[in-house]
């Protein structure tokens, strides 16, 4: 059932919101048994919200009339704070942390009647591309199409449940270096990461402050656009929030794409890209052309060649300072207070952070140390300037740029185990450019190969999410 139809049935009480929510929670529990999409299923909160909706319906409360998400199940990536619900960003160091407040995006969802069903699994703090770098004691989410394969990451649980859920549902994800589009590609769903600053980061457990963006994942592009319309907008609590007009993103889905110009990134094809992926992405470009868009090749050298190095230097540097606050004193994991100051912090962090978190902290601390700062951290920020200039030049000519989302089909866990951390980082090659430069990007499912999904990436200029949705609409229904 489409979400629009579902909401109208909730409003005219053709569907009982409480019975429906109970069924949704049961289904989530069942799915979670062997797929591990949730770190927490927030049953009590969901039922409390359902009861409140029922009460408002009974009282014919006028406020209900225009609610955009009335009764719709919303899953939340674990790194986004939900008041009273354990929010650990998939890390043991934050286990037991129940925020005292809602993130801005959660406040917006609650205002629009969305029902929060749980916190989805992820790489610890977002440090990964396959959701295998989960924190100590957490479970790895499994691909909804083939359980021996990865969901992608870091918003792996979000993408998995989006594909698997048969009930009306939309997911909140977060992307620092590609963590929305990548799992969306591996799980055959739509995933939209907005412009940096378009959605408030207030209440997001941060990874990289100049990189983090909260976005949406949906089974349909309409769902993806709907939730984005709800969560985007200016927030004075986030000093990097962009003070620009709100938009109705669904309105772009009705527009024709005739005459739109699409730049096909030359360096994103060929070497290192699986043939099956390439073939399906070329088919996708063909479909855009059939609908009247004009595609042309463009060379973008910097993002593909230097994006990874620039991203990992900036990301690790920012992560290493952000993670400095986890010291076992005010919240999260603790140890006995029997040693000195530094011994205590060192012990709490050593015992509760996973391998990848430690690697990134070490990399980032190194890149910011005196003697290395200019060569690594500042250099990466300068390369970012050049990359932004290169993209901006391309957007003078094109409405959107296109590439594969990931160079490979979803890999098996047994294949991932053999990769070194550096080989792992290279999987983000298509995605780090738009992420470092704060550009909106959208994964659209374009086809299947060997029964596995292939995703295509559309990249837009700052604040041009609408154009991406307009183009992406061509692929509506391909994944169902």
């Amino acid at each position, binding site marked *: 059932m489409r979400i629009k139809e579902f909401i109208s049935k909730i409003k005219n009480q053709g569907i009982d919101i409480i019975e429906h929510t109970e069924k949704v929670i049961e289904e989530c529990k069942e799915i979670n048994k062997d797929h591990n999409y949730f770190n927490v299923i927030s049953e009590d909160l969901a039922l409390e919200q359902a009861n409140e909706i029922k009460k408002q319906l009974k009282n014919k409360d006028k406020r209900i009339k225009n609610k955009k998400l009335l009764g719709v199940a919303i899953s939340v990536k674990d790194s986004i704070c939900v008041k009273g619900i354990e929010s650990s960003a998939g890390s043991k160091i934050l286990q037991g*942390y*129940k925020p*005292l407040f809602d993130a801005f995006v959660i406040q917006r969802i609650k205002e629009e009647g969305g029902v929060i069903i749980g916190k989805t699994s992820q790489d610890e703090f977002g440090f990964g591309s396959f959701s295998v770098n989960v924190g100590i004691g957490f479970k790895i989410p499994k691909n909804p199409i083939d359980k021996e394969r990865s969901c992608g990451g870091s918003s792996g649980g979000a993408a998995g449940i989006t594909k698997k859920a048969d009930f009306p549902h939309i997911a909140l994800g977060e992307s620092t270096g590609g963590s929305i589009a990548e799992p969306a590609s591996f799980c055959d769903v739509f995933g939209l990461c907005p412009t*940096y600053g378009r959605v408030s980061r207030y209440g997001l457990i941060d990874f990289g402050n*100049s*990189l983090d963006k909260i976005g949406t994942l949906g089974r349909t592009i309409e769902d993806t656009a709907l939730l984005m319309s709800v969560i985007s907008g200016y927030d004075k609590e986030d*000093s*990097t*929030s*962009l003070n620009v007009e709100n938009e109705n993103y669904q309105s772009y889905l009705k527009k024709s794409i005739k005459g739109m110009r699409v730049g096909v990134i030359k360096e994103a094809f060929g070497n290192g890209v699986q043939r099956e992926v390439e073939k399906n992405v070329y088919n996708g470009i063909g479909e855009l052309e059939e609908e009247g868009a004009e595609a042309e090749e463009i060379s973008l050298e*910097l993002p593909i060649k*230097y994006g*990874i*190095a620039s991203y*990992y*230097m900036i990301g690790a540097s920012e992560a*290493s300072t952000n993670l*400095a606050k986890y*010291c076992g*004193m*005010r*919240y999260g994991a*603790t140890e006995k*207070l029997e*040693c*000195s*100051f*530094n*011994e*205590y*912090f*060192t012990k709490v*962090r*050593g015992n509760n*952070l996973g391998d990848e978190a*430690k*690697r990134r*902290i*070490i*990399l980032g*601390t*190194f890149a910011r*140390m005196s003697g290395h700062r200019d*060569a*690594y951290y*500042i*250099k990466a*920020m*300068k*390369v*970012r*300037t050049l990359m*932004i200039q290169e993209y901006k030049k391309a957007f003078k000519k094109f409405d959107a740029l296109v590439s594969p989302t990931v160079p490979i089909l979803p890999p098996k866990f047994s294949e991932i185990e053999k990769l*070194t*951390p*550096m080989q792992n*980082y290279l999987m983000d090659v298509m995605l780090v450019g738009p992420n*470092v*430069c*704060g550009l909106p990007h959208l994964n659209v499912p374009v086809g299947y190969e060997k029964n596995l999904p292939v995703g295509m990436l559309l990249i837009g200029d700052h604040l041009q999410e609408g154009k991406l949705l307009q183009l992406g609409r061509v692929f509506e229904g391909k994944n169902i």
Partner: protein
Amino acid sequence: MQVDRKLLEHVAEIARLKLSEEEIKKFMPQLKEALEFFSQLKEVNTDNVKPSFQPVELKNAMREDKEMECLSQDDALSLTEHKKDGYFKGPRAV
């Protein structure tokens, strides 16, 4: 770039991370590989290029200098077991 045990232990100490012997052995070649790869940034000519600390241009965002309600002391202390007399209790400083 010389990535040796001494450097790794020094960085871990600054970052307040306890690494086991096993972790040191595992991380050393991994960090070496990553840093060698990241050194390719040197190839890019960035003379007279300003660093972008943010991806979009942002002007100073100031809040009004106004008194507001904040987290209560009880709430702030509710998330830890280490507290005493209305304060956080920390490890020994000296």
